[in-house]
């Protein structure tokens, strides 16, 4: 049974089709990366999962509840745009958001205090939100998302605005949530973070799903044609070779996509220049992302 299941979802805003026939299944207890370029329909999809928006067509099931908000109390949501009452104290904001999820006030207080301590915010509990730095507000928002121990947590760009130390703290918390059985949908543009954290990845582009599966499966799917090289002549030479469809220059080495047998490529290179590094490589998620949603794809 999946935590979230979408089947044939369509959503149109006036003339713009934001989501087009999207189907996906988020496995329970996994960190599910939800990636895609700006305007691809990620936030619209997340809002439909939360029943903030209603699809024009298709079926949505969340934690066993179909087509209703019934599961929302068991879902924590951290939207990309943060929203906290500036004039409220941190403790009151947390209590309010927890109460809206149906948490008893005493339990909310205990959970809130524990999380504040965990994220080093205890001394700010009685302060107004407006007195906190952006990073601290970000952590308060994160606490409000997870303090009710939801079965499903939807995080939309959770690391934006955080310094490296707090970023690591939050990353550890997300992994702990997963280990405790919580399903996490992690929407991001940061391919490095998605690759680091996610068990499965779904990428949508122009409202349609273009990638879905475990990270290994995706890399295997896109990894057979990539060779990592260091040669005299650099990327200019590589780009001129027959069969090379693209070159990604990292400075010290280059990744090339080669349509053919890598042995032929090696022979060709050795006869042309000096080769100091030759490795069959799997593409990073970033490269896969660019391959699907980069300028070439966008022009297609």
């Amino acid at each position, binding site marked *: 049974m999946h935590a979230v299941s979408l089947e044939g979802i369509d959503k149109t805003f006036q003339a713009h089709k934001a989501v087009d026939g999207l189907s996906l299944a988020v496995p329970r207890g996994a960190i599910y990366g939800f990636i895609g370029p700006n305007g691809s329909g990620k936030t619209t999809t997340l809002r439909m999962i939360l029943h903030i928006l209603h699809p024009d067509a298709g079926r949505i099931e969340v934690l066993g509840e179909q087509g209703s908000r019934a599961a929302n109390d068991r879902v924590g949501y951290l*939207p990309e745009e943060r929203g906290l009452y500036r004039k409220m104290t941190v403790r009151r904001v947390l209590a309010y*958001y927890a109460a*809206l999820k149906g948490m008893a006030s005493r339990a909310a207080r205990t959970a809130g205090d524990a999380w504040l301590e965990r994220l080093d915010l205890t001394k700010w509990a009685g302060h107004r939100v407006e007195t906190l730095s952006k990073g601290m507000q970000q952590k308060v928002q994160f606490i409000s998302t997870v303090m009710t121990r939801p079965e499903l947590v939807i995080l939309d760009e959770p690391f934006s605005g955080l310094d490296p130390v707090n970023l690591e703290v939050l990353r550890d918390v997300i992994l702990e949530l997963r280990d405790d059985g919580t399903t996490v949908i992690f929407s991001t543009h940061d391919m490095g973070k998605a690759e680091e954290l996610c068990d499965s990845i779904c990428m949508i582009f122009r409202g349609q799903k273009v990638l879905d599966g475990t990270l290994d499966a995706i890399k295997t799917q896109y990894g057979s044609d990539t060779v990592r090289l260091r040669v005299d002549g650099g990327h200019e030479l590589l780009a001129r070779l027959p069969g090379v469809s693209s070159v990604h220059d990292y400075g010290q080495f280059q990744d090339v996509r080669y349509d053919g047998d890598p042995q032929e490529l090696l022979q060709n290179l050795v006869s042309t220049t000096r080769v100091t590094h030759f490795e069959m490589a799997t593409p990073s998620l970033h490269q896969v992302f660019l391959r699907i949603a980069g300028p070439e794809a966008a022009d297609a």
Partner: protein
Amino acid sequence: MRKILTVARTEYLNIVRTKAFIISIVLMPIFMGGAIVVQELVKDKIDLKERRFAVIDESGAMFDVLARACRDRPIKKDGKQVRPRFVPQQTDGDIAVRTRQVRDGSLFAYVVIPKDVVETGEVRYHTASPTSMGLPQFLRGVIDGEVKRRRFLAAQIDQALVAKLGRPIRFGTYGLQEVTASGEVAEAERVNQAQTFGIPIVVMILMFMLVMTSAPVMLNNVLEEKMQRIAEILVASVSPFQLFLGKLVGIVFVSWTLSALYLGGAGYLAFHFSVPVPGMIYVWFLLFQLLALFIFGSIFSAIGAACSELRDAQSMMMPAMLVVMIPMFVWMPVLKSPDSTFATIMSLIPPVTPFLMLLRLAIPPGPAVWEIVLSIVLTTGFTLGCVWAAGRIFRIGILSQGQTPSFARLFRWVFE
């Protein structure tokens, strides 16, 4: 329901904990009480400076009368001077000199009494301080009395007899006389003007004030939640309609809190000054306040949800404010003729019913029962319609960003 109450409770606490609310609660009675105290303190602080004035008496008959009246005019109370002394000076008709004297302060005014004043009744008072009323009123009274006396004398009519025959009747307004079981007719109570007109005016103004101060708060709060992106967090936990309804309930309780304070204070004052206030008026007040806040709270929160900027909200607020103002334009004819067709029809039109029906209810004997029932039914129906339509607008508007709202778009959202 639990979530609606959670939203309502937070909304209520967020408002009543603001400095503005606390200040308005604490300072309002202080200002009102302070105004009374200040009035008491300054009521005797009138200008006691001597008023010298020139009398250009072309008739030759008025100066002595005026001088005697000024001399006899009481200016002290309990041994303390409470009014300015009037000092007349008989002068010639050199207007240029008199004008200069007024300007340089040696005279306060000059009065020209023509030769044929008894026939024409024409007197001219010249001053550089036209807002000072004491002296001209005094002169008018004295000269008027003397002119009349002379006219009666010339006509050989006894002025005292005319005054006696012309004395006005005593006309009293009383309530209905009750007939007891034994057939005795009980003495009716004399109508108290303060009670008859004071109570309706006070409840009407108070209702207007409370709606005007409470309902627009909805707009600000919704707009703030939208601009600060709090709305998306909230609607992920509660439905937009639950959020909207919770806010309405919250604002009703805020307004009822104010009502409790103000009505309590007004009730105490009425009791203190022995002005009987019918108990049912409090019930009607709270009921119509509830309906008014649901109507105008819905409208204002829908506007708040539809707008993304304060400037847009302010321009959209104007028509709504005009609707709130309607009762203020028409309440006076309703007060004067509460049973007229105009009053009946106006008080049955829902947006103004909470104000005008309340006004009519506060005027004895009050409207007919069917009118009260019909007004409540119509207003409740209108209120439900407002809440429904505003809820539909709220549902879409609360998440929309960057769109300049228009009434056409709001109308479309209602039926989308």
